[in-house]
């Protein structure tokens, strides 16, 4: 996902090079599910006073029993799968007087899935540079060819729209609020899940609000983020994130974070036992990702500035999903899901 950048109305005066390595694992009671190892690379390079280019490459190597519940690939045989994903994106931004215009492209390729996307965005600032309006438009064309032959050359096309505003509230506080609307048509079923049959249209409305407050007494920064999202599949979700960035002596910093997320179930999700609720010709899924649940993430990132504009960081996150962590209750009959990931990073400004 190409991020919607906040305030920058002038081209960056330094480049950034970032390398990360992700080690991810998830599990359910009594069963390891999936592990992912993923090197990733990002570069931002100013080309002139008014032009900058940025791009990222990610390579995921996934092994284990893939996602949740009645999956023909993980199957009764217990044989796991190994899957690879290569994703890259590039974006060029032209900076004008008090405005910026960006053009981006992205591609993500797996053995059974190819996605190609583009984006256009514009940011326009007020004369005092304290408020920036953002407008974005993007699209994606995806092709699905499942290895079991269920989905052959199936397509999915999506258009995205974004409007947003970023406001400097004071010398120590900044607020951003973005609305995005996404409309997609095509194949949404999971070809690896028997009887899975989903609508061929999906519309998503999201409202994201972020707020950063610098606290001069401790030199810390409080970072808040809230996303409300409604999906035409019938699922509504709330995600609240709080992070605390604390500079420490000798170039160290620590940033603990917590995230709470809840979602309601898609209207065509049916509780176990499989396949209760399935009626031929009607929408049906037993994919627990479309069930109702709550989830917590707890994490901490530690970083250290090094000589010659290098820096190093490590981030540890622990995630747990439980149906009874949703206020009012979640979907019954589902084991909790846990995950942990560790992200090692080095970066250099140049």
């Amino acid at each position, binding site marked *: 996902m190409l991020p919607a950048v906040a305030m920058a109305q002038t081209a960056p005066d330094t480049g950034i090079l970032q390398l990360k390595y992700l080690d991810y694992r998830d599990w359910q009671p009594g069963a390891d599910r999936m592990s992912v190892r993923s090197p990733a*690379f990002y570069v931002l390079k100013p080309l002139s006073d008014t032009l900058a280019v940025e791009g990222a490459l990610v390579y995921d190597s996934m092994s284990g029993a893939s996602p949740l519940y009645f999956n023909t690939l993980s199957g009764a045989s217990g044989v796991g799968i190994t899957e690879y*994903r290569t994703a890259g994106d590039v974006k060029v931004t032209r900076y004008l007087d008090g405005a910026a215009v960006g053009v981006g492209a992205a591609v993500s390729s797996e053995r059974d*899935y190819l996605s190609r996307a583009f984006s256009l965005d514009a940011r326009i600032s007020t004369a005092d540079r304290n408020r920036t309006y953002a407008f974005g438009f993007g699209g994606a064309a995806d092709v699905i060819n499942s290895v079991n032959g269920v989905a052959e050359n199936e397509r999915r096309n999506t258009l995205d729209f974004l409007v947003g505003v970023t406001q400097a509230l004071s010398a120590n506080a900044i607020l951003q609020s973005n609305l995005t609307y996404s409309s997609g048509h095509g194949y949404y079923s999971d070809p690896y899940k028997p009887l899975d049959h989903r609508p061929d249209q999906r519309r998503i409305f999201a409202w994201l609000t972020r707020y950063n407050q610098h606290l001069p007494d401790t030199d810390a920064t409080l970072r808040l983020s809230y996303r409300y999202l409604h999906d035409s599949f019938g699922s509504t979700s709330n995600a609240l994130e709080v992070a605390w960035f604390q500079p420490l002596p000798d170039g160290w910093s620590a940033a603990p974070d917590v995230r709470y997320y809840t979602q309601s179930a898609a209207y065509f999700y049916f509780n176990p036992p499989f396949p209760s609720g399935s009626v031929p010709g009607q929408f049906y899924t037993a994919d627990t990702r479309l069930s109702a649940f709550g989830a917590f993430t707890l994490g901490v990132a530690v970083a250290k500035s090094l000589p010659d504009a290098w820096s190093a960081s490590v981030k540890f996150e622990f995630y747990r999903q439980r149906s009874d962590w949703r206020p009012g209750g979640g979907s019954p009959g589902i084991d909790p899901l846990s995950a942990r990931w560790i992200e090692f990073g080095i970066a250099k400004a140049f």
Partner: protein
Amino acid sequence: MHRMAGPILTALALLGSGCATLQPPQPWEKGQLARPEMQFDPDPLGARIQQHIYASKEAATGGYGVGGGGCGCN
């Protein structure tokens, strides 16, 4: 929980934190706002990784930008 309870709670939390008092900074007062931790995407690669992880485990996806494309993970 009522559908709008989350947004309302967030708005209250923001009000309680003092951001309701609008004092836009003068040009010479923007030093703190320029710090990396005051940016909304200070770690673009980390944000991509995190959003990809959540998109693979949760029904909700999107809200952070446009034209990111899809993957077979959800």
